[in-house]
């Protein structure tokens, strides 16, 4: 039996085939949980119980067993996660071979994370909303705008990047329609524009530190969009702000965010 599995592994042509064989070699309940654990960016026993309700009574035990697998690693403060390389393969398998079930579990994940009192969890919910149901532009726009509204304070700007990067994960894997790609790009551009406005307000209020920081985030968003013209405009604004900041040396450099 073991030899037979080994022969199959050697014969596997792709990473996906290999992964299917390796997961199938696990005990049935653990195998099901390993597949499901790859869907969110992090999980713990509570998350697993929600994602796979028929195994909820075994979730704590299976969570402990998952931690002994090579591709499971700690996720600080939240539990554990499936290693990014393994996760990418398993998500490809979900999408290509079990799409309806993937959508269903993503829907549970969206509901669970949206109910948490935590902006990071809301960003995770927005990520799952992308595949949870067939494309609904109005619904998704509403969900994303709602999430984004909570990210407009300086400490949470980095979460806006996480939100976008998470969406790009689905886009790069071809799991979203063109409309969604446009929605994410449009959302990113709108958010960058709002940041520019916010930075201008801070600059007028002589809060130059904030203006520089906010412009830095706007610049990153334009760079992500590949919009060199908009990025250049932000750089000009940054230089002007640096000049006001009496840091012409940094202004000349025009790049460094390290002025603090």
């Amino acid at each position, binding site marked *: 039996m073991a030899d037979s*599995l080994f022969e199959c592994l050697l014969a596997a042509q792709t990473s996906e085939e290999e992964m299917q064989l390796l997961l199938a070699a696990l005990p049935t309940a653990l195998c099901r949980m390993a597949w499901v654990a790859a869907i969110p960016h992090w999980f713990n026993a509570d998350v697993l119980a929600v994602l796979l309700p028929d195994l909820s009574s075994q979730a704590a035990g299976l969570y402990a067993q998952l931690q002994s697998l090579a591709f499971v690693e700690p996720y600080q*403060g939240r539990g554990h996660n499936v290693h990014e390389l393994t996760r990418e393969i398993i998500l490809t398998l979900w999408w290509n071979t079990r799409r309806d079930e993937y959508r269903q579990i993503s829907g549970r994940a969206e509901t669970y994370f949206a109910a948490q009192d935590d902006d990071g969890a809301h960003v995770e919910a927005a990520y799952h909303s992308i595949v949870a149901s067939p494309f609904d532009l109005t619904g998704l726009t509403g969900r994303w705008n709602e999430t984004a509204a909570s990210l407009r304070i300086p400490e949470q700007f980095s979460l806006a990047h996480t939100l976008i990067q998470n969406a790009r994960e689905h886009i790069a894997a071809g799991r979203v329609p063109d409309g969604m790609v446009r929605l994410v790009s449009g959302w990113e551009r709108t958010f960058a524009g709002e940041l520019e406005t916010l930075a201008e307000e801070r600059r007028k209020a002589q809060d130059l530190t904030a203006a520089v920081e906010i412009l830095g985030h706007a610049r990153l968003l334009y760079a992500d969009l590949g919009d060199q013209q908009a990025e250049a405009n932000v750089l000009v604004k940054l230089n002007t702000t640096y000049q006001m900041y009496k840091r012409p040396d940094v202004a000349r450099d025009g790049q460094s965010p390290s002025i603090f």
Partner: protein
Amino acid sequence: MLRPIVDRDQELNILKASLESRGEPPASILLVEDVSGQGKTKLLELYKTYCRNTQIPVAHVDLKNGSLNPLDILHAVRKELQPLLLPRCTAALQSPYIVSPSLEISDNKSLFGPASYTMETSISISGLSSEERKQWWSNGARALLDDLCELAGSQQSRFVFLFDTFQDVAKTETEIWIIDHILRMATPTRVNCIVIVLAGKQVPEPTAEWAPYCKVLTLQPLKLVDWLEYATSVKSNLTRDQIEQCYERHWDKPLTMAQIIDTFVKRGAV
């Protein structure tokens, strides 16, 4: 639950050597840069275990997903260690400007015990101007490093501060805080009491200020003999020939190698 890890003796010895202040100047910042799946996180895990087993104070912050701000990092370190041993850091976190719906901290953790805590919301600062907030970041970093140095002194050791998945905070306020405050303040005055390890797919380019105290650590590809030893240690059912066949195919994918070998342990146990 700590699963067996393939030996990384060579890299681990470099990290261990950083704890001895014989070098001139001592390497107090170590950068571990490599592509995904090569064992950076496992190496940090090994080093952390070594530190704990030898009573060397250690704290570990994983920056995965980029959602930790500097305040969250202070809070995470405080939770990982005994809060009572970090008085300056504790005072900083008790500032009336700090907003945290779940700043409940257990004070009974062992200094060298495992770090595990449950999901919580991100902490933020309110009521401060940006300039004041930046000043707070600086003060927070100083408070943390002073506490860690004092703690290290009481243990007659150096404090080991590990950051993993650094690329996830690239271009964020957290990256700026780590580079401009933590790394700059860690050198040169604190080089004898603290060792900082930064691991990730990208790590910061050393600046003139801290480059003299910095060492870049490259992960070496694991050899067949490493995997044979690993298979023996976990009691895998695979034969030497089979492991050789796996290695020919996956020598550059340690994660896949480990998963295959582990699979045959589990099947053997059933």
